[in-house]
């Protein structure tokens, strides 16, 4: 067991090193993208500021509370853009060119290799900016999360990252069959955008959709609620279990898709 862990740790560090070497080589491009990400972070705050300039609460959320959700959303987005999307694009590209074969020929778990293929280190700017927003919002509320709240918040946030990652695995499994769909990551990001606001903004069927089918609620609203102390234990446990189940399903679908995979001709 320890042997396997050590092996994968070594692999992970080699993969990281590759991404860093690339990032240094194309540092100009990556830096610009990092700055642009910060700019977009600012832009997404604009609607919120306009709304709360005229209203005190929306769907039961006050400005700082909503800001926590937006902040957590942005942290998640930074993790997504920095650690998950680059690998996704790399893999989909590899499927199209047929170079994914080489990954499948290596004696290591394909899902691991595919997930750690590329990172974008400049998204750290994004990450810090978003965390700053969350901290600012908490300060405005004069709310310091208790240990319990902080723990559940972080735990749920980890579930959120796991969920996003599983969704991504599903997307890649899909692109095994529908090779030409290059802009799947674009679609993915757009659906993800709906998690920007507290989930209570959506009513009825849509809310169910975003809680159960695309579990956006789990990703941003629940962790925010946990941090603010508004989330019941039952809800938190349910969310955690749901997330783990989802991840298990994704892994199973990945294995099946790999089974049916046909590499690009010649």
């Amino acid at each position, binding site marked *: 067991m320890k042997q396997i862990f050590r*092996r994968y740790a*070594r*692999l992970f560090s*080699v*993969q990281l*090193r*590759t991404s860093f*070497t*690339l990032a240094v*080589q*194309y540092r100009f491009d990556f830096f610009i993208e990092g700055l642009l990400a910060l700019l977009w972070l600012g832009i997404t705050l604009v609607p919120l500021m306009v709304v709360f300039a005229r209203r005190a609460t929306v769907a039961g959320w006050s400005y700082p509370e909503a800001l926590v959700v937006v902040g957590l959303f942005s942290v998640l987005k930074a993790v997504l853009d920095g650690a998950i999307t680059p690998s996704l694009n790399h893999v989909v590209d590899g499927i199209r*060119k*047929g*170079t994914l*074969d*080489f990954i*499948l*020929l*290596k*004696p*290591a778990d394909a899902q691991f*290799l595919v997930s750690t293929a590329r990172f974008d280190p400049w998204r750290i700017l994004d990450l810090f900016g978003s965390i700053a927003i969350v901290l600012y919002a908490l300060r405005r509320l004069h709310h310091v999360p208790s240990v319990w709240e902080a723990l559940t918040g972080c735990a749920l946030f980890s579930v959120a990252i796991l969920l996003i990652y599983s969704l991504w695995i599903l997307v890649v499994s899909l692109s095994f069959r529908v090779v030409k769909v290059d802009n799947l990551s674009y679609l993915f990001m757009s659906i993800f955008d709906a998690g920007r606001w507290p989930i209570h903004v959506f009513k009825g069927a849509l809310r169910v959709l975003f809680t159960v089918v695309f579990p956006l609620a789990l990703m941003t609203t629940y962790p925010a609620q946990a941090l603010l102390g508004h989330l019941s234990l039952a809800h938190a446990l349910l969310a955690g279990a749901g997330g783990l189940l989802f991840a298990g399903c994704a892994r199973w679908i990945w294995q099946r898709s790999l*089974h049916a995979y*046909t*590499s690009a*001709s*010649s």
Partner: protein
Amino acid sequence: MIDVSSLSKIYRVHRRPPGVWAAMRSLVHRNYENVHALADVSFHIQPGERVGFLGPNGAGKTTALKILSGLLYPTSGKVTVGGFVPHERRVEFLRTITLVMGQKQQLMWDLPPSETFAMNRALFDLPKREADAVQNELVELLQVGPLLGKPCRQLSLGERMKCELVAALLHRPKVLFLDEPTIGLDVSMQAQLRDFIRRHNEATGATILLTSHYMADVAALCPRVVVIDKGHLIYDGDLKTLARRIRPEKRITLHFASVPAPGSLDRLGNCVARSDSQATLSVPAAQVTDAVRAALEQLPISDISVEDPPLEEIMREFLGGERENNGGKTPT
């Protein structure tokens, strides 16, 4: 080492005729047909053998290699490589084999080959000292030392191919699958690679499966060939025997000291090429000695050589003839 019995691979492909109307119709209704990439193929390869896979484009050679390396699942039939079932993709199996594709590369494009080597060493969990020794030996044999620090996109095709071979052999695999490794390379580079592959096989006893369109590759490297056409295995055996069976003739090339008398050539044999200074005759193998003696006696010869007919021609005829027979099998 490699055992294949009744291997078949069938693809379901959606075929759409061209045109806007057909395109719109295919939005609602799709026609699928079954493509038999491989049909009932069987062969056995001993450890240390060098075998060439021949056949026209789309014959199924690459499909066979991909099934043998575990990238594709066979539709039916039994396949074992080194005692393993390839598509189970066990770790020990993957350590035993390597696949090199001439049209794709595993080297990372924007980074120097040394980075890919480091990656592979981590992937195959190779202990540092051993891996260093193997890498240095390969680098020296292939003479790619000065290239290791340059990003791959700056290397020429031949240099990339050599580095690709180093990356593929770092883990000392016992079976090498080479899919058109010399494609696009210049003649001298092709010869270098062929030499390397043969010496590697002799030194390490690794089993080698090679597909190539260049008959020179196959002739130089593979004493045994397997010919596949439209998914069917139509020949498995010695290349020379096949050649002699298809074209049981030899080519005699005559260089003249002075222009020969008209008609004097035709008495000797079938003339396939001729100019004022030389001519090439096609003569049945049994009659070669007589023909040569007659030529030396009757014609003003300055140089003479006897060769087998070009392999390309033989293969073309073999495969063309097979097509006319509607894929009938020649007995091996």
